């Protein structure tokens, strides 16, 4: 297992990211730019893979709010990562309707195949996995998603999971 450190390295927002933030802020009435917080945090996470404290502080600056307003929101919602993750985070739905069609077996298989427990990162830094709650695809279970695009994989089998992992590994090594 790779040891991932909680870093406080300073971050720079790219021009593209700053553009995305500006595009979000105009969606709300004047003075209500805090509304952009959730969408902006998604953009920042897509760029860095997780939300470090310096990154959240920068978000606060751009939205003209206090850093604590960013931290409290980031920690409330499940999609924001407050520590570094594998390059690909495989999120499997673990809620009952998916369990009826084999979600638990898929999670067991993932654990075995990747050799890491839920929430841990593989030695090559490529993968982590976790169970998440119902993803609104219950008729097509078992399902998993991979951020930051949230690409969706339905009707999973052990074989399709293996295929996915080798495809992603190939993609990462190219």
């Amino acid at each position, binding site marked *: 297992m790779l040891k991932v450190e909680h870093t406080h390295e300073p971050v720079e927002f790219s021009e593209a990211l700053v553009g995305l933030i500006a595009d979000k802020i105009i969606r709300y009435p004047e003075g209500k730019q805090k*509304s952009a917080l959730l969408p902006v945090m998604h953009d920042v996470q897509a760029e860095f893979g997780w939300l470090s404290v310096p990154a959240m502080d920068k978000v606060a600056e751009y939205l003209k709010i206090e850093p604590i307003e960013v931290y409290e929101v980031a920690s409330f919602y499940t999609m924001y990562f407050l520590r570094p993750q594998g390059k690909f985070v495989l999120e499997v739905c673990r809620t009952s309707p998916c369990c009826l069609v084999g979600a638990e077996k898929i999670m067991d298989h993932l654990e075995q195949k990747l050799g890491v427990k839920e929430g841990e990162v593989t030695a090559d830094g490529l993968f982590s996995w976790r169970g998440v709650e119902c993803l609104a695809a219950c008729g097509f279970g078992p399902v998993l998603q991979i951020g930051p695009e949230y690409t969706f994989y339905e009707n999973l089998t052990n074989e399709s999971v293996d295929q996915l992992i080798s495809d992603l590994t190939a993609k990462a090594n190219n």
Partner: protein
Amino acid sequence: MGRKLLLEHINVPGINTYDVYRSKGGYTAVEKAMKTLTPEEIVEEVKKSGLRGRGGAGFPTGMKWSFLAKPEGVARYLVCNADESEPGTFKDRYLMTYIPHLLIEGMIVASFALGANTSYIYVRGEMMPQIRILERAIAEAKNAGFLGKNILGTGYDLELYVQPGGGAYICGEETALLESLEGKRGNPRIKPPFPAIAGLYGCPTVVNNVESIAAVVPIINDGGDEYAKLGIGRSTGTKLISAGGNLKKPGVYEIDLGLPVEEFLYSDEYCGGIANGKRLKAVVAGGSSVPILPANLFMKTINNEPRLMSYESLADGGFVSGTMMGSGGFIAYDEDQCIVRNTWNFARFYSHESCGQCSPCREGTGWMEKVLHRLENGHGKMSDMDLLVDVSKKIEGNTICPLGDAAAWPVASAIRHFRDEFEWHVTNAATAVRRNYGIAHYADPLIIAEKAG
């Protein structure tokens, strides 16, 4: 075969694009509404249609719209609830993926009726692909002159934005959703005031489910009276049902309300029966929050009448022998499924998703999860069932938002209807853990009869 109002064109290639959608009669509801109807007349049509909110509570949409406060000089908002996180429910995702313009068209008509100049579609953050689909559809509609300034030369302006959530079931509750849209934690607000008076940014706001908004399109096209001809009694129109679990053909189906549940479950047009030749053991008819029913009580009411897919028929018998339509998240359990495990899974869900504001919900959901976990893992006690019922009663009705009730009902109903299966887990702990499924004698008696005959 029932009429399809929402999904009629779902299989037309390219229906997700503006051009194809338009060629199939898309955006005529916007033209009709803006050119021939006043906002009040639109609200009247929706009232006449009898449409009831499709997000779970079933509150009449036209009535909700007519409650919207209209103080001079204050902005009003329409917010579409596309948070869709209720386990078992996946219809909104389906609709937004395959026919996004239907939602956009409904949003324009509804915004016009309510006098909103900025509207938001709050989509759960996990649905990034759907967010991109909707944003593309919005750009197309704007390009065609159905959004933006001075729409169709009427002087009416509308901007429509898609807002992602951050992953929290509670943000489907409308006031938590508004908090989240304001960039805060998803803590439900104390009501009153209701959003119709003080919603987004303290302004009058209507929150409606994706399917409710989409249904406005056929209502305006054909008239509220036509819509009300479909369905049965106060359950008018069509409803999208997300059918999952151990079914031969899981998927999203549009049914006329009033369809017999037996036909929905077993006919080839819909679910096609239970998968793998198994028998039906139990059904959750409207998403994880509604009471679970054993097969026999689900197929027929306690008065031996065939049960129908309608708000009233599903609720027939109240909490003693009935359930609820909820969000239309239909989950079928075959004879091999364990009710204790399922109840634990749902309890864990609610405990995980409680926002933590009220102690009965925060603590109670955690206790229920723990007790169910030990029952499922062979360490339960005979007194646990009464303990669970007791905890569920202490949550019910004592919380800020209905998540508390939603957590209590599945547990209370599972114990009410399947108590001997819970007891069996205590008395046969080793077997229950090894086998990991329950007792099959609840399985559908109708099918047993067929097999015997």
